[in-house]
């Protein structure tokens, strides 16, 4: 068993790769009442085509299947629901699916060990029948429709659609009502056997717990079903530096026009190498140029151009990366002009040294603060792990970043040719 330490935070994580290739992490957290575990597979809505590690057959599945599979994992062979057992234990359970990961989690203040056994067991015991698959379709259709009425979600997905021509990023995580109705039990099993193999999964346990006891439970509960060596071959559509379209405009029942500007990473900067550094550098730039305290923010605020400020975020992954800057405005043309000119101006003059130092301090602070949430630590640890990173190394990477890397990244990433805009306009009555 390996120990990963972080001196600044005074935190450490134990790590072990089990005999069935599953990665297990345990982090002791003294003084917390709640204990938390998350079991995740390196599999999300983006994984639509792959080669089965068992049959070597090439498989293409329906959109939204990873999320559908997540819903169906709760179904048990005896007709019960995985939530039932958690309810008996007084534990709080849930699951989520994103583009690259599906996670099953629970927290409890009592009966944690029983809960952990149950978590590991039910995720390893699929039970899909034509009947229970049919039953789920109505529920998921309502979930999709709920998101269809959510303007923020629409705005976000239209930005992705504009940026990506073929990459699965542009497809809704839950799929469409049409695509999910085509999903079958057989299709679910073939995804399960590939991606829910212990060789593609990881577990993170955190709380005031005994390491050896936890490891004993884990080792005696995990199964070897469907294990394989090496990695799953995922077939990805080859995305290049072209955009699908520069602009997507949609009308919805909203009060003010909403906009979202996206900058797509060029193929040349993608990959696992230096991913954490690239991500932090980009976030620092966003902080300095667009967030509270920046000249642009102040101007937009004073001129009443943007209500509630700008939100901006960089999303990094091995095979894609993008920045999104969004807000609400009644004067889209002026806001666009101000944002683009702030970027061009910064490229020309370079980032201000004092701004850089403050942004770095703020990042250090928010990194330390995040270690007060056990859920945040566990979920993010695994999400980073699947991308080949260790969140405990974040501080060292951050400290080493210099202003030159910001200026380089600024010029390379914020390229007008790589930018798109998504707009949601209020519905006009005819």
């Amino acid at each position: 068993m390996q120990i990963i330490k972080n001196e600044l935070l005074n935190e450490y994580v134990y790590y072990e790769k089990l005999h069935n290739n599953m990665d297990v992490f345990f982090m002791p957290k003294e003084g917390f009442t709640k204990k938390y575990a998350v079991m995740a597979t390196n599999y999300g809505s983006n994984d639509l085509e792959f080669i089965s590690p068992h049959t070597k057959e090439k498989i293409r599945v329906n959109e939204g299947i990873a999320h559908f599979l997540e819903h169906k994992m709760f179904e048990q062979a005896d007709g019960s629901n995985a939530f039932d057992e958690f309810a008996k234990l007084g534990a709080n359970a849930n699951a989520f699916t994103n583009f690259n990961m599906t996670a099953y989690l629970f927290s409890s203040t009592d009966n944690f060990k029983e809960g952990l056994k149950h978590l590991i067991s039910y995720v390893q015991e699929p039970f899909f029948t034509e009947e229970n698959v049919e039953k789920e379709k109505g529920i998921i259709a309502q979930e999709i429709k709920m998101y269809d009425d959510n303007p923020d979600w629409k705005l976000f997905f239209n930005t992705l659609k504009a940026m990506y021509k073929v990459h699965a990023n542009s497809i809704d995580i839950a799929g469409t009502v049409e695509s999910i109705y085509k999903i079958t039990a057989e299709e679910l099993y073939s995804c399960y056997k590939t991606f829910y193999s212990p060789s593609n999964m990881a577990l993170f346990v955190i709380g005031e717990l005994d390491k050896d006891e936890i490891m004993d439970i884990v080792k005696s509960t995990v199964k070897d079903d469907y294990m394989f060596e090496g990695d799953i071959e995922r077939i990805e559509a080859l995305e290049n530096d072209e955009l699908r379209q520069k602009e997507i405009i949609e009308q919805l029942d909203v009060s003010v026009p909403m906009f979202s500007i996206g900058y797509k990473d060029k193929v040349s900067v993608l990959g696992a190498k230096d991913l954490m550094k690239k991500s932090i550098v980009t976030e620092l730039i966003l902080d300095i140029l667009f967030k509270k305290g920046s000249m642009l923010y102040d101007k937009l605020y004073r001129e009443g151009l943007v209500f509630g400020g700008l939100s901006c975020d960089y999303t990094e992954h091995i095979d894609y990366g993008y920045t999104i800057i969004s807000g609400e405005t009644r004067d889209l043309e002026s806001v666009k002009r101000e944002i683009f000119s702030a970027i061009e101006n910064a490229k020309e003059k370079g980032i201000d040294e004092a701004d850089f130092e403050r942004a770095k301090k703020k990042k250090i602070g928010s990194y330390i603060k995040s270690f007060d949430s056990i859920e945040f630590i566990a979920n993010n640890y695994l999400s980073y792990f699947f991308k080949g990173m260790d969140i405990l190394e974040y501080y060292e990477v951050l400290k080493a970043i210099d202003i030159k890397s910001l200026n380089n990244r600024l010029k390379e990433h914020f390229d007008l040719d790589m930018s798109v805009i998504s707009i949601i306009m209020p519905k006009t009555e005819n």
Partner: protein
Amino acid sequence: MLIPRDNYKTNIVTVYLKRPLNKDEVTKNSLIPSVLKSATVGYPNPVAIAKKLQDLYGSAVGVSVDKMGEKQVLSFRMYCVGDMYLPEPVFEDSLAMLKEIILNPLTKNDGFIKEYVDIEKTILEEDIKSKINNKGHYAVEKCIEHMCVDEPFSISEDGYIEDLDKIDEKNLFAHYKNIIETSPIDIVVAGSFDREKIIETVKSKFNFDRKELVKIEKEEIYFKPVAAYVREEMDVNQGKLVLGFRTNMDYKDEKYYNLMMFSAILGSGAHSKLFLNVREKHSLCYSIYSSLEKLKGLMLISAGIEISDYDRVLELISKELGDMKEGNISTEELTNSKKFIINNLKSLNDNLSALTNYYYSMSVQDSNRTIEDIIDIVNKVEIKDIVEIGKQIYLDTVYFLTGKDSK
């Protein structure tokens, strides 16, 4: 109030001002925190404030305006990293910043700075207009508005667009002075700190000039309504159904926890009757839950459904509710819901913000029950107590946000 927790890396200090929820002042109250956050004597513009906070390793001061029963609560919350994790201490300076924002606003000719008041008025107006963007919240708020039309509880804590015209930098400042002098004020400090020193530090920074405090009436909660059915049309893909009930239950009464159990068994979490029947058995929705407006004695059931399923869902909800009133509750449902509630109560310990809110809400309710006291009470609830509570729950309003031209 002090909440010492040495295992945290963060400190949170919250200053709460309590006002009666009142149409005459609601919009001014809603505007004041954001105006205060724009400019202070020491930091005369938003950029100066933001830069100072960044320098303190990203300490943050957040403001919010909430409705707690028929009270409007203004809160100012400072978060900072614990000094022991940083190369230089930030707690004292962060606290000073919180004080600066609340008590030392930049003024001119006995008024706030006009520019910031005007900007914040526009932002508030847009915020109020944008409530239609979140259909779920919008539907709940509209249901309450219909239910409590003649009661202060129907007043929106965000305020009203039509009031904004009458507000200027001078009358807003006068109102600010008044609320600082007459509002009940609470300060909650949570995190890892020196218990001996902290009270002195906070006291020395926050010296409020006190006058006679404003009177805040207790909520009226006893009603036996006849159900009303309301429909509103909007361009939506999914219908939002909200059922509002009067529970005739006073939050000060220990029996309130029987009601809490009633609502939990009916509609909290994946083991609840509504989830298992309306969602899992009949596949009619993704989201369905029951919640309580504790201080006003309301119970609300919300669901996102196919518009054409309105009658069926309503029928299923009333069947589950009827079942509960008739005592159709299993021991398993009882113990599962108890464990669910107790686990949530115990988990409060692991979230400083939630813990702060909990202690403040208990103080608003004039209660000194600790989390442990409540766990004891919940543990004692029996099925017959829950059935008994069911008898006093009356359906008041059924609100449906539906698509256009759907009858």
